[in-house]
């Protein structure tokens, strides 16, 4: 099952409204993505908590429809 990159980006933005999101289709197969998410909402949160926020935004699609999403999250450097 594949998922569109635009849809992933949209869901993350909806879940974390002030997030900067960039998505990379790693293999061009619509199934293996990397996402880079930067948001002030991540400030003071552990990496596990940051990733959980992104998974939450994806509403259970991760691990199901979305097979592989390499995640990198951070808070903006100046926040």
């Amino acid at each position: 099952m594949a998922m569109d990159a635009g849809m992933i980006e949209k869901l993350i933005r909806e879940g974390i409204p002030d997030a900067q999101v960039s998505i990379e289709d790693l293999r061009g197969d619509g199934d293996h993505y990397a996402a880079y998410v930067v948001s002030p909402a991540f400030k003071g949160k552990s990496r596990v908590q940051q990733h959980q926020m992104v998974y939450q935004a994806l509403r259970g699609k991760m691990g199901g429809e979305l097979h592989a999403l390499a995640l990198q999250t951070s808070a903006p450097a100046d926040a």
Partner: protein
Amino acid sequence: MTDQNVIDRIKREVGDNDVVLFMKGTPVFPQCGFSAAVVQVLTHLGVPFKGVDVLTDPSLRQGIKDFSNWPTIPQLYVKSEFVGGCDIIREMFQSGELTELLATKGIAVQAA
């Protein structure tokens, strides 16, 4: 919902072993690239760990996801604490944070 027995088993595993990796396959024969990557990091650091193969038990495969509120496998636990999945472990390894964390928790690491 996950059976209490499964949750109890997970708690036992992470309580009885300092470093536990819930993974697909075994440390010697990982069945998934993400699990293999974490095994590689731990092996490189010379950290003794227990691998728990979730593919042998569907209830465990779902149970570990419910336990940590984390949708994917592998999952690494150090001294009962969920540290992360493949991306986080890789990132922490590269930045040196993983070695630091292990040291803080009193786990011996070979000088890398």
